[in-house]
């Protein structure tokens, strides 16, 4: 009978094989590596974009060239060589006009491995999905059902062609091309992503879902999502991500823009499971993402994220609470294990009167990982009676990991009410023994404790996603108990 110690716990937590680490051999068309104006033009041309879009990209590229990578985040990594990345890779057998039945069987098999059988998704979950592999949106299901309600849900490339007036009006208004280094890069080279428009007063009858996957080696994925909820509408949007296991680091730099007009509500949920690298910290995805939403009067935006993957995460889904009485929410679970590093949090910018924001962040660190919460709550001069509640909890496993909290608060109006709570705890041997004594083995005990710790956030996820997220938490933290 071996004594179960901190060391054993640590060993238990060493990564289980990354379950999504397969590479599908699909014929792809990949641009030569490197980035210059010609590549930007070529991407735009490949996608048959109008001139304004090409110009917009070039503008962003010029801005990007002058910018430097941000270094303020609490992460250490070898800076990507932006000239050794391929900026466009598309499975060649994909024709956007094809229906699902025409999709490359290898691709379909890949989805199956991902556990996202489209048929099943369609029938069982009432979820409409847009799947982006590498850079191209492969299939959009449920389009017809949605279009009856006037809802537009398609890849952003299609939207640029089919609804240029909408895209042109809103793209870059929430995250400007020059917002930051990665946003500028994304603006220049984004190759696909999702576009969604919910008309006035329409309640989207199903969860909209996009699945992102990096398949090709040495490619970056730069998806761009633009979601517009017109006055009084409602939409719940889900996003999931995986990547195959590779030794080199892959770059993922996405931009998501949300617009919630008067009285509209957007729920945006993410399960991020990009390849985290191996147990020695080799490989893994660099996940540098800019997500931001704008709330007009009485509007509400809820960000919920479960971040278990990526070697390095840099991500702050934010809300600009411009309209009076608007509400911003951020619910986050970030798990880091082995050598993963996450610097994630949110910004709640209160501009309107009676604006309210809630931040619940749960960080779970294991192995030798570093997990940081970074959040800004800003109450501007005119934001009378603004309220914020923040809660940041950290759970540590073992003695070699770190949890950090960097809350920034800026208040320029005296009527503001701001609360901040933070806790740090550790999974104890006594908790594990208690579970063991009740017949619950150690791995399951850890999963139970972690799920309990994360419950407030898991509860915010749509049902189907919550189950997947719970499983993901288990996989991310499980070891191989002998």
């Amino acid at each position, binding site marked *: *009978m071996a004594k179960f110690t901190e060391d054993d716990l640590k060993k238990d937590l060493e990564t289980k094989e990354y379950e999504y680490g397969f590479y599908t051999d699909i014929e792809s068309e990949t641009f030569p590596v490197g980035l210059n104006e010609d590549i930007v033009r070529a991407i735009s041309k490949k996608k048959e974009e109008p001139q304004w879009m090409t110009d917009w990209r070039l503008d962003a590229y010029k801005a990007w060239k002058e910018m430097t990578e941000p270094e303020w985040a609490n992460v250490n990594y070898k800076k990507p060589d932006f000239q050794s990345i391929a900026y466009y890779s598309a499975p060649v057998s994909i024709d956007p006009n094809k229906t699902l039945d025409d999709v490359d069987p290898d691709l379909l098999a890949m989805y199956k491995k991902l556990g996202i059988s489209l048929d099943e998704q369609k029938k069982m979950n009432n979820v409409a999905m847009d799947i982006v592999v590498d850079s191209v949106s492969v299939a959009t299901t449920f389009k017809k059902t949605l279009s009856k309600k006037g809802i537009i849900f398609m890849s952003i490339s299609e939207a640029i062609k089919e609804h240029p007036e909408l895209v042109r009006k809103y793209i870059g208004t929430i995250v400007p091309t020059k917002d930051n280094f990665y946003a500028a890069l994304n603006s220049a080279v984004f190759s696909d992503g999702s576009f969604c428009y919910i008309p006035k007063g329409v309640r989207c009858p199903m969860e909209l879902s996009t699945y992102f996957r990096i398949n090709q080696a040495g490619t970056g994925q730069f998806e761009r999502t633009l979601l517009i909820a017109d006055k009084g509408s409602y939409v719940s949007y889900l996003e999931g991500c995986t990547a195959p296991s590779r030794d080199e680091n892959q770059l993922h730099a996405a931009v998501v823009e949300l617009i919630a007009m008067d009285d509209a509500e957007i729920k945006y949920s993410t399960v991020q499971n990009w390849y985290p690298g191996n147990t020695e910290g080799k490989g893994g995805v660099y996940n540098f993402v800019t997500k931001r939403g704008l709330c007009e009067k009485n509007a509400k935006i809820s960000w919920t994220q479960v971040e278990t993957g990526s070697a390095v995460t840099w991500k702050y889904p934010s809300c600009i609470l411009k309209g009076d009485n608007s509400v911003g929410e951020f619910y986050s679970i970030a798990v880091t294990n082995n050598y993963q590093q996450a610097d994630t949090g949110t910004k709640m910018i209160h501009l309107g009167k009676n604006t309210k924001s809630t931040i619940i962040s749960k960080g779970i660190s294991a192995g030798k990982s570093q997990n940081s919460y970074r959040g800004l709550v800003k109450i501007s001069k005119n934001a009378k009676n603004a309220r914020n509640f923040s809660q940041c909890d950290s759970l540590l496993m073992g003695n070699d990991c770190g949890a950090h909290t960097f809350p920034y608060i800026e208040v320029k109006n005296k009527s503001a009410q701001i609360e901040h709570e933070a806790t740090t705890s550790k999974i104890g041997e006594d908790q594990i023994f*208690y579970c*063991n004594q*009740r*017949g*619950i083995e150690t791995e399951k005990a850890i999963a139970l*404790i972690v*799920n*309990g710790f994360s419950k407030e956030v898991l509860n915010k996820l749509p049902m189907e996603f919550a189950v997947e997220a719970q499983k993901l938490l288990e996989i991310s933290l499980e070891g191989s108990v002998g």
Partner: protein
Amino acid sequence: MLQIKNLHAGVENKEILKGVNLEVKAGEIHAIMGPNGSGKSTLSAVISGNENFEVSQGSVTFLNEDISELDPEERAHKGVFLSFQYPIEIPGVSVTNFIKTAINETRKAKDLGDMPASEMLKLIKSKADLLEIDRKFLSRSLNEGFSGGEKKRNEIFQMAMLDPKLAILDETDSGLDIDALKIVANGVNKLKSKDNAVIIITHYQRLLDYIVPDFVHVLIDGKIVKSGTKELAYELEEKGYDWIKEELV
């Protein structure tokens, strides 16, 4: 059911149990009494497989199988239950979720599928009624913010749900007022059958008024130095432990 032979155990070179012998048969209730630091809680920890204690000598046999090498969860699956002296908090995990997981993990170990939800619900209701537990209590986070009495009652509730062959109640009476004590004792008595056994570890004779033991053992300095019937408990209550210590000299 349980045979403990010449059991020596302790922590980091400090021997706490120094040759314990004990036999518990199905249908019996044994009380283990003794002064502070005599090794009572260590004995319960070692039987249940707490890996903070090392067994240096002797054996623990349960249902004719040497269980000394088994993990705590394997012992639990075989029917060993420990009611903790200080139950542990698990924030965010409800009483119901915890016990559901415990039951299904135990079933899994026996190659059974999950207990159907309706059956689980029925079982929870009946055991909650038995221990006069409010339904609201079941949705609270496990042991978080529980009063001493609630924690102990929750332990006995879990025992009722898991239906163990051998239940070890470690200082279950501490922190209980007299009404709660009666409810807990009443629960244990109702769960008692000719097929299971109970070991009660206690300082005081008080609990033994309600759960009447067949045997009483006195543990002093890591050894059982005297055994008898329930009358021994009264004698201890009246005279303390010193007279036994004197007898030993």
